[in-house]
């Protein structure tokens, strides 16, 4: 890592620690994880006080929360959403299905796991994970935001590797 890169990464960490915009993408979940993400916004957990907010467009987002193990019908949509997000970006897999297929596993219509098509920063297991666990996962992802720059360079190689999946 060069000096510039190091500076850059600390800057990113500093930015994200106080302001993080999240875009939720349902890639074929059972709705359970989605409801727990919604619960994060309720007055009890109130995720906004951490400077974390949900936004309407992937272009405004820094982090994608993906729930569900990517169905065949949503694969293209998920890829497009990822591409529409500006760098630096993170992808957090929420729930057992997104982490590795869960109960549904690998079927004709279900790929089983987000990491089969996109790079995942943090995995949050659970069926569904409680709001506390999701929040912990998000905070965990912010902590390692400084690694984003390196993953950004590796991105091209990753896409090439996964294109024939």
């Amino acid at each position, binding site marked *: 890592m060069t000096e510039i890169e190091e500076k850059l990464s600390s800057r990113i960490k500093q930015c994200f620690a106080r302001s993080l915009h999240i875009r939720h993408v349902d890639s074929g979940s059972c709705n359970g994880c989605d409801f727990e993400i919604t619960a994060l916004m309720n007055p009890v*957990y109130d995720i906004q006080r951490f400077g974390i907010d949900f936004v309407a467009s992937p272009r405004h987002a820094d982090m994608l929360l993906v729930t569900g193990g990517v169905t065949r019908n949503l694969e293209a949509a998920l890829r497009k959403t990822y591409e529409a997000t500006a760098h630096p970006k993170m992808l957090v897999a929420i729930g057992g299905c997104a982490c590795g297929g869960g109960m549904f596993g690998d079927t004709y219509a279900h790929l089983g796991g987000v990491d089969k098509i996109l790079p995942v920063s943090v995995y949050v297991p659970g069926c569904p994970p409680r709001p506390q666990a999701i929040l*912990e996962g998000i905070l965990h992802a912010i902590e390692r935001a400084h690694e984003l720059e390196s993953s950004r360079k590796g991105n091209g190689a990753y896409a090439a590797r996964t294109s024939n999946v």
Partner: protein
Amino acid sequence: MIAVLKRLWKHGIGTIPKDELLHVNGRGKLLLDDTKCTACGDCVLECPSEALSLRRVQNEFDFSITYSSCISCRVCTEVCPTNAFSYANEPMPSVQLRDELVVHYTINRDESEPKGEIVSDRDRREVILKN
């Protein structure tokens, strides 16, 4: 507008403080007490989501729990003859690499008579019992 204020006055702010936030009460992470486990393999056979696996490594058994597959269904706690499973109050760990979601336990039980090598084969989604 008055109703809004009245409600705020009566119920206050419902947000839980930051330091209590990550505290969980319900079932979370599945734990195995490797001193109790006899490597009988019942749980591996019954687990609906193939989160458990048991593998013989020479004289010992390697027991693993895959958190990404675990659905906290309690089947393993019910079938275990020695009550070796328990749920911790903390959530399952969030990790950066998928491999870190698998925890391994080494079970070394001389007195037990294991049924054989049980491998949870994820590709075929069935459990093979080999003697």
